[in-house]
């Protein structure tokens, strides 16, 4: 059991990494598996201190690589433990083999990701490509835009992933440095609240020598599709669970999030940004500024990308004349020859009766900040397209064009 020292809720000034570590502590995780890589390492440093100080009673296993780290997480979860792990950048991709087996065996492992650009060369700035490269592996996935949201998302993800109707692993993502290393006020709840919100993890068929079961046995090709269908069903059926859990979170902790999309100043917006993660904080400023200049611009921030809220995206983005997708990820040779979020937005809009124009902005790559000036520039590109009734081109490389 956790020996959380806080007895009532309190506000602390911590960064995203520490917020994630705090969430793991409040969730009373049983097993932590770590392997260092910037920027997520700070989370494991914080957890190591908590375990060493006796604040948290958990097995803390330092693996020899991310592949082992995730393998340990898989095994620990199979035995019925609540598991916390994490990584960044190439660490995320090194463990790739394990993502499908973990979700395929329906183990609700939780992985914290502080994004980092994939090599080469060794750029450690934030970029969503690391986690997004695994987006179709059967993990629940979404981005937080600040430390508080990160804390809250971690708690909610456990609750959703461990729900017997779901039983899927979760990647709880935050931008490296922009969220992971910038401190802000985070309200830590009363442990009693967490206890009420997050019941103990119980897998229906844990590995137990007294009741032997086989996890991940060899199967026949024709037995594969039913399992895939079941995994797909779990992903779809998690959607009502996600909504329920957000409601309940709001009731218990008093913070309400839209599970799928955050809309900012979209009521009468004609053009809108569509994006994920920490750059949305800057985007809000930019939108406010431009609103002062009577530009009808809004912001839609995707909070959960897996499962993808297709209908909600369709409904919300259809309100606008132009949608500007801010990628913060690489989709080399993809639909837009830019990022991968464009395709997700467009596919959701395909069935809309009033499809907006969609344009993709390659910005926030390699850990570069997206500055206000660039948001203005992007807004200008959208309003021009609105006037023209036609986009200039599908993808703009922000900062590299006039």
């Amino acid at each position, binding site marked *: 059991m956790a020996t959380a020292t806080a007895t009532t809720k309190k506000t602390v000034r911590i960064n995203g990494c520490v917020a994630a570590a705090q969430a793991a502590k409040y969730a009373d995780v049983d097993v932590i598996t770590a392997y260092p890589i910037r920027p997520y390492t700070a989370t494991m440093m914080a957890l190591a201190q908590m375990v060493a100080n006796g604040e948290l009673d958990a097995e803390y296993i330092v693996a020899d690589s991310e592949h082992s780290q995730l393998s340990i997480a898989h095994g620990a979860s199979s035995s019925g433990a609540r598991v916390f792990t994490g990584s960044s950048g190439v660490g995320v991709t090194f463990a790739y083999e394990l993502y499908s087996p973990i979700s*395929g*065996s*329906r183990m609700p492992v939780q992985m914290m990701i502080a994004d980092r650009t994939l090599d080469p060369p060794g750029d450690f700035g934030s970029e969503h490509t690391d986690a997004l490269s695994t987006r179709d592996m059967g993990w629940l996935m979404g981005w937080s835009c600040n430390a508080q949201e990160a804390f809250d998302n971690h708690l909610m993800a456990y609750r959703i992933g461990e729900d017997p109707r779901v*039983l899927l692993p979760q990647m709880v993502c935050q931008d490296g440095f922009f969220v992971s290393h910038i401190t802000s006020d985070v309200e830590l709840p009363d442990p009693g609240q967490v206890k009420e919100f997050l019941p103990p993890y119980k897998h*229906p*068929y844990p590995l137990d020598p007294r009741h*032997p*079961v*086989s*996890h*991940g*046995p*060899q*199967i*026949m*090709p*024709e*037995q594969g*599709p*039913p*399992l895939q*269908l*079941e995994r*797909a*069903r779990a992903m*779809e*059926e998690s959607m009502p669970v996600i909504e329920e859990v957000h409601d309940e979170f709001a009731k218990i902790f008093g913070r309400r999030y839209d599970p799928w999309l955050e809309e900012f100043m979209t009521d009468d917006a004609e053009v809108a940004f569509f994006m994920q993660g920490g750059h949305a904080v800057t985007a809000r400023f930019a939108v406010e500024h431009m609103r002062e200049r009577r530009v009808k611009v809004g912001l839609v921030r995707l909070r959960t990308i897996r499962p993808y809220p297709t209908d909600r995206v369709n409904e919300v983005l259809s309100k606008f004349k132009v949608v500007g997708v801010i990628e913060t990820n690489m989709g080399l040779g993809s639909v837009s020859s830019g990022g991968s979020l464009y395709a997700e937005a467009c596919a959701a809009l395909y069935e809309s009766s009033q499809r907006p124009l969609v344009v993709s902005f390659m910005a926030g790559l390699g850990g570069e900040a997206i500055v206000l000036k660039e948001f203005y520039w992007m807004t200008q590109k959208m309003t021009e397209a609105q006037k023209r009734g036609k986009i200039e081109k599908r993808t703009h490389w922000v900062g590299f064009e006039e």
Partner: protein
Amino acid sequence: MSTKGTRIPERLMITFGGITPAPSQEKGQDLFPTGNWRAIRPVYRDKLPPCNNACGTNEKIQGFLDLVKRGKYLDAYALIKEDMPFPSVTGRVCYHPCEQACNRGQYDEAISIRAVERFLGDLGQALARDVVKAGPPNGKKVAVVGSGPAGHSAAYQLARLGYQVTILEKSPKAGGLNRGGIPDWVLPQHVLDREIERLVELGVTIKTNVEVGKDVTWDDLKKNYDACVLAVGLTEPNSVRAEGEDKEGVLYGLPFLRDIGMGTSKVKLGDRVAVIGGGNTAIDCAREALRQGALEVTMITVESNLQEMPAVPEDLHDMLEEGVELLHGRAMTAVLGNGRVEALQLYPARFSGAINASPININREAPAERFVVDNVIIAVGQHASLNWLPDEFKNERGTIKIDSFGRLGDTNFFAAGDVVQLGSGQPLMVVNAVGDGKRVAFNLDKVLCGEPLQPRSVTVDVLFDLNRMNMTYFPHFPRVQQAMLPPTSRRKTQEEVIQAFSEEQAVEEACRCFSCGTCNACDNCYLVCPEPCIVRPERSNGLYKILVNYCKGCRVCIEECPTGCLEGVPELDFDTGVVRMDTAFAISPGLHGRQAEELRHLAERPAKNI
């Protein structure tokens, strides 16, 4: 919702996340019958170890060594006793054909099987009550003529089968060759006495001083018993047909030993003794002569070197250690002396053909040698005394004529031991006589039960080839040597020359056994199977089970079986336990099943014009 309206057909329904009962559990592998990937099936097929095969009575040697290895001495003793009534005797006297056959001999040194047998035999001697019980009485009476190894063995097995057995022994003491042919310093009398007590405890009656042909007749035997086993042995020594063999001081091997064994010897040997003959009895005589006071003992053989001598090499070695001299390539043509032996006349000689199996060529053109001695012991074999036997049952070899089951015609008489084996090509040894007695007892039982006697038709696979085992599991390790009395002190005493194994030595030696071709529950297959296809419900010998529904035939267990007991058998050889699918990847008749059905009937269709 893409999964809305989907339905998984019942045949493909699997549990949550593909999590199933463990493959080690009952039914745990039904869902994923990957056994159909298999082309080769591992099968436990115990072969006959060469030791068991070579043993004259087919003792389960690998079996008792394995039990000794596990510390189950009493079980090991009981296992020996199935085939061998007196392991304490053969544990001392046996010429151990098993050790000559032992595969370990090709690798480093053969297992010291006889020493382990002696360890178990002595354990049996120490028991207050033997583990063997007489069978429920069947009311039938059998006479066994002779109490030597064959007679003892037949009587023992018949008693276990429930017969009322009477042994008729012409000597004053039971034991036959065990007593009369084996010196005390090999087999102490008390050891044999205890084994004979065990036989009496089984309910066997032993009548000594009863000689067939004199005290009982053929007709008496026929009249008074339901059946009879003739195990009279070879009592009459062979002559070398030399002049003057009747002189005083000329002795014959077996009577010389027998009189000492029976305690009736009046022989007083002179200083110089020659022994004629190169076999095991000759060796025993030479060594006994030393113990009877001779100072110089010379063994004179037609064989031209040690290797040609029909003797057990270690006995020969021990004899030479004790100081017996050898004179090879000579034949004795006359015993010289005035009424009493003074010297021998020797000529160079050799076998005209095969060693010990062809007439002797004596070169009388060479100058005769005069070899001065005080006594000569002639030990060139012996023959039977069968005056009492009806002529129809005598053969040209001077032995009893029997069929392949040891039976005399269609009578209820059977014969076993040296009296039938002489000249048959079988070496005459205790263990062969014991085996003979055992087989004859079982054949006799069948005849009295009215069952047909049939030759064994199953071919026996004896594992001789080390390549059939996985030798990487067997590090080289020397044989544990039995301690011996030093040659200088032992040559004058009747004390047992070869010392017993301690418990630790017996276990250490048993651990060296390869268990050739026979499962010894080493757990290797169980451990190396990459999936739980091999189950071990009990940790005891030979009780592994291969879950054929699941085993993919990877062969790892077969390759890694140290003993070579696991074999890969082509799957097509089986029609049971088969998980043969329509196609390799179908668990049920579906699309693949239909394709397979079509393929199956392909041959019946007319050929297409291409």
